[in-house]
């Protein structure tokens, strides 16, 4: 994560390892399996947040069952204390999220729900009203992992989000290099990259992560 900070990242998303990551492709699945086998616990995410949040804003990315088991209120208190800004919840939709939204608001944390190309305008409006911080728009229909091209529907989705809310819009899923980052930055407020950075860490350690971050950051600022 420090390599990412050095590489010019604007904010960091810290994932909580979960045994059944239904929104993640093979790269993150393998990483999560390794983390859990290595003894990673839910509470460790707060240590990671504490480490980097003085340098850049951090949000947690967590599947719902570990967060619920930890206790939504307790999770929010501990995340706030660690210096976190909010949490992205990929398998939680606003309809099922009242306990988490209440807990997050109480700590002035940002609950971040996702919108997808298949979302209706009505649902996008609900997410826009419920979220704080930003709206996470998934560039494609699918799971995490690098793709050769950014979906053409991403731009259209961002426009639909802007019609419903003034919150900034971040686009993620499939973005893996500076070229794609530049393209997405042309219509979105933020570019979200996950699996490509995990793969970089796997293949080349922190040096490779720093290199990729520099490439992505340069792309965004092109």
């Amino acid at each position, binding site marked *: 994560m420090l390599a990412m900070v050095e590489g010019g990242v604007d904010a960091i998303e810290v994932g909580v390892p*979960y*045994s*059944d*990551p*239904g*929104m993640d*492709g*093979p790269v993150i*699945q*393998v990483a999560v*399996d390794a983390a*859990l086998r290595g003894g990673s*616990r*839910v509470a460790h995410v707060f240590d990671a947040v504490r480490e980097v949040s003085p340098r850049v804003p951090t949000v947690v990315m967590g599947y*719902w*069952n*570990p*967060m*619920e*088991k*930890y206790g939504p209120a307790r999770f929010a208190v501990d995340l706030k204390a660690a210096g976190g800004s909010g949490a992205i919840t*990929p*398998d*939680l*939709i606003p*309809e*099922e999220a009242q306990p988490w939204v209440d807990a997050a608001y109480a700590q002035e944390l940002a609950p971040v*729900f*996702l*919108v*997808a*190309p*298949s*979302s*209706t305008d009505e*649902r996008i409006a609900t*997410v826009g009203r419920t979220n704080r911080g930003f709206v996470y728009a*998934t560039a*494609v*229909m*699918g*799971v995490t992992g690098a793709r050769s091209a950014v979906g053409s529907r991403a731009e259209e989705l961002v426009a639909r989000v802007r019609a419903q809310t003034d919150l900034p819009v971040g686009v993620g899923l499939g973005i893996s290099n500076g070229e794609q980052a530049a393209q997405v930055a042309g219509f979105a407020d933020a570019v979200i990259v996950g699996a490509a950075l995990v793969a970089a860490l796997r293949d080349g350690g922190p040096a490779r992560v720093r290199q990729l971050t520099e490439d992505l950051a340069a792309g965004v600022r092109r």
Partner: protein
Amino acid sequence: MTLPDATGHFGPYGGRFVPEALVAALDELGEAHRTSQQDPDFVAELDRLLTTYAGRPTPLTDARRLSEHVGGARVLLKREDLAHTGSHKINNVLGQALLTKRMGKKRVIAETGAGQHGVATATAAALFGFDCTVYMGEEDTRRQALNVARMRLLGAEVVPVSTGTKTLKDATNEAFRDWVANVETTHYAIGSVVGPHPFPAMVRDFQRIIGVEARQQCLDLVGRLPDAVVACVGGGSNAMGIFHAFLPDADVALIGCEAGGDGVDTGRHAAPLTAGSPGVLHGARSYLMQDEDGQTQTTTSISAGLDYPGVGPEHAYLRDSGRAHYRGVTDADAMAALEVLAKKEGILCAIESAHAVAGAFQWLSEQAESSDRVVVVSCSGRGDKDVDTAARWFGLVTAEEVAEAELVRAHEGEQP
């Protein structure tokens, strides 16, 4: 009050814990299911398929030698093993295949544990001309190699899943990932009363014919309702299917038998209702086997079809309300029951179903006076797929014979 409510909740259970990308497809499916139930053409077409293709109604067999064995109580077997493809799974799959067609989709995907649901889905896909992909844990493809071959013969692609625990839970994750990416052309035919709304209610509706038939057949045969209805519970579709018509009959005990593995007190089992806690897995809130961090725990069962850490949300609701009772049945008790049923009735049931037979024996032994009792047992599937497992369990073949047979098979494979 009918359950679930409009948002798919059975009390605190059920709901939708899914990526936003799937919500539109779940809404579309719910709407297709709702309107199809009121469409006489749809209902007639499903009825025609169930009758002329799946072989319904399945019989209720008066198991007389088994009754003698248990001291006189009347044991009636609901013979889902006689349905086409060898289990109750076909009831659900034919309904979902018709819905797939109704929604204009051309591809179905499925997860499978023992392979029964995969075979049923591959069968329906062949019948309807759909492309079909079945996800199956790598461990299960080994345990149930015969069913892998059946699916491939039927034209389906079988994808072994090697992530996580390499069993049904991980096959389900993989099917969800496929669905998120291909949801506009693909229907995910979930095989049990699990998953996000509307699946638990929809699959129950397609399976409730088991109980509707069994209830009437019992009245016709015995002249009264049974004292108990017993079924095995993995995800819980055959149990929900046979229980549902009996829910208003308060005097009929409903007994669900989970996989007790090595024993519920050993921790090595697959019995979330008996020894788990509420949580969220695969799109719904229900009981599940999880550790203190909410990570899903590894399950243990001799039965691939019951080797699953979660369970349908309506079962969670029935457990809490006390309307149904759930117990763990060990591998050893299930296999003993499988042998008794084979030797007394000439019925070789699936290992999954053997858990229900064993549970019925246990329930009867707990009754003060059992000889005038009537018990309906869901014989949810046939045991052809399990002969290999059973042969090893009972030592019917020696280790040398198994090794030799595999050598011969491998050798035959080398011939041109």
